[in-house]
């Protein structure tokens, strides 16, 4: 436990930083972003001394769809099936903000000019905040890819970073969106089926534990994230409420002739200041609490995806075994069945390994059983890859409230099950424990 904490402590984030363990041979950042009508154009700047690249410093302009393309390319790549793929950044969504601006524009004539100006200012600040957030999330996505020893070597990644022209990745049209949607449904149905299949036993306690933990954690964090969002919304509404109150009070003040005049004016001033403070608190809450929860929610989803892939591989492996048995009894097509089975077994083992490497959660319990099936080759030692603790998500906003600052900089340490480099001393036991499923 301590080792993990130490590894986590190295990162004292005060702004976005790439983990120092990921060497500085590849540094990616989004240096600029422009919002045009519906689209946001990000300028991705890369600094690298790696030999693949033609120059040491270069930048390209990318749009959101191209980020999604990159993410999908990773997900669909069989080689990375055993790794947790950093979740794709969400689409820049200015809809809500735009609607409010429109409503304000049409608005009713009863509000004074000052009120209107203030509300417009608020909305613009909101728009700006959303914009900054989306830039930050895209940047973090790229930086995690760059920091990951395996993922950073992907060819598509290089193309993404370097290719000067438009990648001409069009946004998914409706059919593809629908297809994606259906695929998700199929995936979750599949997941449910696999887990409930009586014949499929989870052969590794480690993964069983991980699985239950992850499922629970993911639902809870998603809940917390949603509710934190709602708190933030109410806070914002409250702050905005102070605008008409302040305006009404000052107009009351102007028409009073007695002692109440100064009182009303002072009160109006107070509410104006209160409004700014409350607004700041609301946006602080949003940036620190909600965003952090959202980040881990998406991460736990990515981890769940990995578990699912492994489970799928296990199911495939079992099916292959059954097919092999059947073929042997009939003494037909044994060869094809055998090779198929070997393929599945290998895939499964590989996934289990790298997944386990990525999350040294608790004490690694030695798996039951040893590779016993004839013909299955001994696995090469597990790859060195592991998921290094990721940089904290702190959009570069000014944080002056001290309690919020210290709170966020401390709790942004990710939950241990996703963090940390594997302990060196446990690597040996892990190697022994890299068993493919045992007893059949």
């Amino acid at each position, binding site marked *: 436990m301590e080792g993990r*904490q130490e590894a*986590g*402590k190295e990162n004292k984030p005060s702004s976005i930083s790439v983990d120092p363990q990921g060497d500085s041979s590849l540094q990616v950042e989004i240096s600029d972003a422009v919002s045009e009508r519906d689209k946001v154009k990000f300028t991705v700047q890369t600094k690298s001394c790696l030999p693949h690249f033609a120059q040491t410093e270069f930048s390209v302009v990318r749009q959101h769809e191209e980020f999604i393309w990159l993410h999908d390319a990773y997900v669909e790549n069989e080689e990375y099936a055993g790794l947790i793929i950093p979740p794709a950044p969400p689409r820049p969504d200015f809809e809500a903000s735009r609607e409010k601006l429109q409503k304000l524009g049409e608005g009713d004539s*009863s509000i004074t000019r000052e009120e209107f100006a203030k509300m417009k200012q608020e909305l613009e600040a909101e728009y700006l905040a959303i914009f900054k957030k989306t830039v930050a999330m895209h940047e973090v996505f790229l930086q995690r890819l760059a920091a990951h020893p395996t993922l950073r070597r992907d060819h598509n990644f290089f193309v993404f970073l370097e290719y000067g022209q438009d990648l001409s990745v069009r946004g998914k049209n409706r059919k593809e969106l629908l297809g994606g949607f259906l695929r998700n449904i199929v995936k979750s149905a599949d997941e449910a089926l696999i887990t409930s299949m009586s014949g499929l036993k989870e052969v590794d306690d480690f993964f069983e534990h991980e699985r239950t*933990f992850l499922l*629970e*954690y993911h639902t*809870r*964090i998603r*809940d*917390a994230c949603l*509710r*934190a969002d*709602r*708190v933030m*919304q*109410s*806070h914002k*509404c*409250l702050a905005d*409420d*102070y605008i*008409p*109150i302040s305006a*009404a*009070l000052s*107009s*009351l003040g102007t*028409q009073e*002739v*007695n*002692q*109440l005049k100064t*009182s009303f004016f002072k*009160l109006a001033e*107070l509410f104006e200041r*209160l409004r700014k403070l409350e607004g700041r608190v609301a946006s602080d809450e949003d940036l620190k609490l909600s965003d952090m929860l959202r980040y881990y929610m998406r991460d736990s989803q990515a981890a769940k995806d990995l578990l699912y892939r492994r489970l799928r591989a296990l199911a495939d492996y079992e099916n292959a075994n059954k097919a092999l048995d059947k073929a042997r009894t009939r003494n037909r097509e044994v060869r094809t069945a055998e090779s198929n089975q070997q393929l599945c077994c290998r895939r499964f083992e590989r996934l289990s390994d790298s997944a386990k490497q990525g999350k040294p*959660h*608790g004490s690694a319990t030695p798996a039951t059983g040893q590779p016993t099936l004839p013909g299955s080759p001994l696995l090469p030692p597990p790859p060195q890859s592991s998921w290094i603790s990721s940089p904290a998500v702190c959009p570069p906003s000014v944080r002056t409230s001290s*309690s919020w600052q*210290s*709170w966020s900089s*401390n*709790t942004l*340490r990710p*939950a*241990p*099950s996703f963090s940390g480099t594997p302990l060196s001393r446990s690597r040996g036991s892990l190697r022994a424990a890299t068993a493919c499923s045992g007893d059949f």
Partner: protein
Amino acid sequence: MESKSISAPVIFDRSREEIEEEANGDVFDIEIGVSDPEKVGDGMNAYMAYRVTTKTSLSMFSKSEFSVKRRFSDFLGLHSKLASKYLHVGYIVPPAPEKSIVGMTKVKVGKEDSSSTEFVEKRRAALERYLQRTVKHPTLLQDPDLRQFLESSELPRAVNTQALSGAGILRMVNKAADAVNKMTIKMNESDAWFEEKQQQFENLDQQLRKLHASVEALVCHRKELSANTAAFAKSAAMLGNSEDHTALSRALSQLAEVEEKIDQLHQEQAFADFYMFSELLSDYIRLIAAVKGVFDHRMKCWQKWEDAQITLLKKRETEAKMMVANKPDKIQQAKNEIREWEAKVQQGERDFEQISKTIRKEVGRFEAKRVKDFKTVIIKYLESLVQTQQQLIKYWEAFLPEAKAIA
């Protein structure tokens, strides 16, 4: 804030009566409390009985401290009696709290949920404020009906206050007729003071209504914030439960506790927002309606006087005609009528002057009271805001070491 000195030079030319009234400083040694709402009876005939407690050292009351049980319709009955006696002569009678069929039905049906308890509390507070305002009025305090209301243990049931009764419908018809009349009266205002004051009250009314609407939105959103904070506290607690890292888990459950306490704070603040700020505004909106009513009565009084003058003129013309036509008995009748109408004209003039004088005094008193009221409530409200913020700071500062201890 307590001493009422004559304020700095004002724009309007204030009448002698107004200034006199302000400088007097109503000092009344009488305090009214409305408490212990109790449900009496069952089903649709049920009602809430409130305990009205009076503490006083005034000699006109037989005891120095006494209490009686009254129901809402009793309050309404009191108000209608006072209004019928004093409104048309220019006294600003404080309006009673409004009926609410929906709210009352819920209570009658027996729903013990938070909204009906809130409703009862809201009503109780409103009744208390109503009585306090009424007894602070020097003229109304002398009224025997008011004393009977405060003192006697049994009060004849005021049936005419029911919305759907005959009297209720009559009231509504009268109100409509009044509204029509108002539009047709064109008064020659001889006194600019009245015109200015009316305009002033009209503006004040509009502003207060706007402010009230915004404050109601504030109360609503604060209640929402409180509910959302409570929900978040729960999820934070659950999250803390599923966390394996002990320090982080503890920090999360501490966070959940802090958020719960904050939710309580928000609720209390919402109550303060409402009972202090919002109710004050709605009370004054209704009071200003009463003030406007008083001005309207003055107009009606003037109309009566004017009508009497016109009729007198007509009667004189008739007399002149009779003189020419030489019909001795008709002449006598005309002379009688003239005398009658001369008296009426004089009475009308006296009434009009009386009501004008009373209104000037009343408005002075009202304005002074208004300034005092607003100041007191604003200060109380600001204090509540300060307190909430200080508590917030305390809670978060207590949480800070927990957060730091995570690593």
